[in-house]
């Protein structure tokens, strides 16, 4: 799919929900349903589905953020707070971490987990939509969105909103499923996602449909170069990406000029 057709589609009345085409207005509710239903089992499923590797992907993303004490970090679609927990210690008492998510159930699981982990008092939770971030212009040092962008209806709008709230020189990191670099890996990965994932979803989380949606939404997500183009379109500079685990996942980085 080219940038243009994707953009055009993004602005139309219908959009993708996994492989199904749905009304744009409905997607938000459908995505919410998915995460309402997976929230309580979300962390264990993450470990199972990725055989623990998601922790490495997140760790490398945090390294790339180069976040320092005293900074303000916004973790969009932060869900159960894996990245926020780490950022909370990195920015220290003088800094601030905002864990933002559209879904109250995911935030609730995140809050309990972070409290248990004894996170600093520098953590704030905000329920909001990535497309319309309720923060001041030029107010954030670093934004991360991990495995969240593919769920957002208008990704371009969301990227523009992130660009707006970042300080000049601030950086955006997008961690997301992407396109495997080898055909063999793609094949195995397809079998895994469409056969084994929904099965695990059924057995562990008793929720086959949600995990089928996750697998499908990964395939609908823009590939490495397309996402890079979208970031540039949203005025980010010095955009680059790193493929991980053979391109199953990529982390994109862009700087606000």
């Amino acid at each position, binding site marked *: 799919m080219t940038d243009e057709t994707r953009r055009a589609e993004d602005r139309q009345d219908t959009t993708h929900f996994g492989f199904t085409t749905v009304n744009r207005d409905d997607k938000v509710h459908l995505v919410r349903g998915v995460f309402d239903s997976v929230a309580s089992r979300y962390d264990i499923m993450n*470990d*199972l589905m990725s*055989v*623990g*590797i998601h*922790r*490495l*992907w997140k*760790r*490398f993303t945090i*390294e*790339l953020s*180069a976040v320092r004490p005293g900074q303000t970090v916004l973790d969009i679609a932060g869900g159960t707070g894996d990245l926020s927990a780490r950022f909370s210690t990195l920015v220290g008492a003088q800094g601030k971490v905002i864990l933002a998510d559209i879904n109250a159930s995911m935030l609730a699981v995140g809050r309990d987990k972070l409290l248990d982990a004894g996170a600093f008092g520098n953590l704030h939770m905000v329920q909001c939509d990535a497309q319309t971030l309720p923060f001041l212009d030029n107010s954030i040092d670093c934004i991360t969105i991990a495995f969240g962008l593919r769920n957002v209806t208008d990704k371009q709008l969301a990227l523009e909103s992130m660009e707006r709230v970042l300080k000049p020189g601030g950086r955006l990191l997008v961690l997301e499923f992407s396109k*495997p*670099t*080898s055909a063999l*890996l793609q094949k*195995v990965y397809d079998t*895994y996602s469409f056969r*084994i994932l929904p*099965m*695990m979803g059924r*057995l562990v989380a008793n929720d086959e449909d949600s995990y089928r949606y996750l697998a499908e939404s990964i395939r609908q997500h823009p590939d490495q170069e397309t996402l890079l183009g979208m970031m540039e379109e949203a005025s980010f500079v010095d955009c*680059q*990406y*790193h*493929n*991980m*685990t*053979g*391109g199953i*996942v990529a*982390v994109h980085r862009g700087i606000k000029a």
Partner: protein
Amino acid sequence: MQDQHDPALLTAATAALEATINQALTLAPGARKELAEMADTVIAIDCSTPAVAIFITITEQGKLEVSGYSEAKNKTLVRGSLEDFLALAIADDPAAMLINSDLEIIGQTAPLLTLQQIITRMDLDWEAPLVNVLGDVAGHQLAQWLRGVFSWSKDASQSLRRQLSEFILEEGRLSPPAAELDVFFDDIQSLGLRVDRLASQLQRLARNVDGRD
């Protein structure tokens, strides 16, 4: 925009190294105190062949952060080949080793030597920290795999060197890394099997319950 190594793989190595050393450090308050005095020191290990860079940051708590990426400014940079680094890692007299080797050092040498001594003095156990880093699912398997790859003994330095070079060269260049993929497939397969077994057990159970009603 191709990394020389899969960052996830390098991250597995740095995370494992960090967790293992820090775990051992929790049992060595003396070493921790020594390290804490060097807080905020960053040592950049820049290996030329094979090309990998890792960064070791010493924290105020006297622990280490090991990463594959760092933007810290004042680093002690050590550059050389894998052979030089291995020789340094297992040297009895690292100071002499440093002077005589081809390693290039930019910045302070003292923290590097202290760190080398502390690490070689410790008895490193891979398993528990790996489970912390990766979770139960993959931690145990990776620990076993690493134990094979990094068997940290002076007698084995020859084979260690060979294994390490092979590990870094092979795993680093191929995309996707063959061994990682294999492990991943095996995991998926065995997971699939276990899931299948579980499913049939559940069905049996359900039948039994139905039968009783």
